[in-house]
């Protein structure tokens, strides 16, 4: 009888930040869809938050959605001084019960970004996930 793969090796395959980042660079969100209940999670989860199941299948979702909230940062953490002012936004993805947050440059005042503005993921770099207005 073949030995069952160790829990660690199964979990290890889920450590897919690089794959997540590569998808973000293509404007996509790599999500994990629970193989049992279908609940969607971002790629960094190991167990389903809805049913506790451990098996997932990849779901590659178009990185487009609407801004649900954001801030405009004027006192930044280290490394972000040259980007001030910029926004950090939370976006609800279209056609999926999933939200994602990231960096949005070029936002100076709330008039530049009404809630509900359509936006999309356009890349990933030293600023993290990059989101731009559509």
């Amino acid at each position, binding site marked *: 009888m073949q030995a069952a793969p160790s829990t660690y090796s199964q979990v290890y395959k889920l450590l897919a930040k690089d794959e997540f980042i590569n998808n973000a660079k293509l404007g996509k969100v790599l999500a994990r869809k629970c193989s049992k209940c279908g609940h969607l999670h971002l790629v960094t989860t190991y167990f389903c938050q809805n049913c506790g199941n451990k098996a997932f299948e990849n779901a590659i979702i178009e990185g487009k959605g609407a801004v649900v*909230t954001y801030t*405009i*940062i*004027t006192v*930044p953490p280290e490394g972000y001084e040259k980007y001030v002012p*910029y926004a*950090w936004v*939370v976006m609800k993805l279209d056609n999926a019960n999933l*939200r994602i947050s990231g960096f949005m440059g070029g936002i100076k005042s709330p008039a530049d970004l009404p809630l509900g503005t359509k936006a999309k993921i356009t890349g990933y770099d030293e*600023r993290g996930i990059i989101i731009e207005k559509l």
Partner: protein
Amino acid sequence: MEKVCVIGAGSTKYGKLEDSITDIALQASVDAIESAGIEPKEIGAGYISNVFGIADKQVHLGPLIMSNLGIPEAPSLSIESACGSGSVSFREAYANVAAGFYDAVLATGVEKVTHTGTEWTTTYFSYCSDFFYEGGAGASFPGLFASMARAYLAEFKASEEDLALVAVKNHDNGLLNPKAHLRKKITVDDVLQSPVVASPLKLYDCCPFSDGASAVIICNEKFAKDHSKNYIEVIGSGRGGSPAALQGRERITTIPSTKIAAQAAYKMAGITPKDIDFAEVHDCFTIAELVDIEDLGFFEKGRAVEAVRQGRTRLNGDIPINPSGGLKSKGHPIGATGIGQIVEVFDQLTGKAAERTVKDAKIGLTHNFGATGASCAVHIFTSV
């Protein structure tokens, strides 16, 4: 389970302090020991909460504190749970006394960061977020709460003036607290005209970075009766968690861990929010206090703003919130804050709160969380 009591409490002043992290932790600990009227040798264990000891070149604070109290043989636990470290530490101390492992223990919280400057603290505090998604995409802590604020203001048609009222009220209370960091009367206009830190939050919507330490002595009922006539009893203790990142939450205008912790604490105490006479809540930013007092059940969702406008949360209101001045005015030495709230409840319920005494108070609640509420603890106390 043993009944658990708090028989002594002490704090340093909160603010910019010169002494080392170990010294300020010891000053608060000695204060608590003397307030309890006990000898250090009666302490069975120490619970020491701290986040950025590294900033003052000292981590593993537990053994240092026990050694310098003359009880090096006593076990200690050093605890980090971001801004909620103090209340989590108190819970561990509480649980160990309730379980009968010790008759009496010390819980001390401490932080020393102001010497590092705003950029260091802003950067290091961002490590308490889900860094890959939040800090690592340029979100500061004010920025995360500012995102909650923007969502709240839009959903409940509240204004930045409403947020400012929270700051004004907490500064009024802090003026009456000799140990508060920011003892300064402010107006709504002062808040609105202060520099924007992370829109829509301005400097006066934010608590300060503070140094400081607070400590309490926790014991079983027999020990309390043998040593003191003026102590308080812990009647409720609850903890809860939330998705670590804001994007993981269905609603951004509520903090799930607060609700879970509060429900557990109310259930254990056998009371409801209406029975609470006053509360010390986690107002790291003005928006947080509004969200907290709804999640704790004092007001329905979206109704906190109206209550604040009516003055119901002021010191003479029907549910005074943050009589100490809160994190906003008393200050926020993050490892100490959760213990500092319990010090305030102790002072209030044992007749030591002087000018800021909440009239006829018998039951007080503390609410303290880590990060954007990813972890939370709520405790309920009664006078005896």
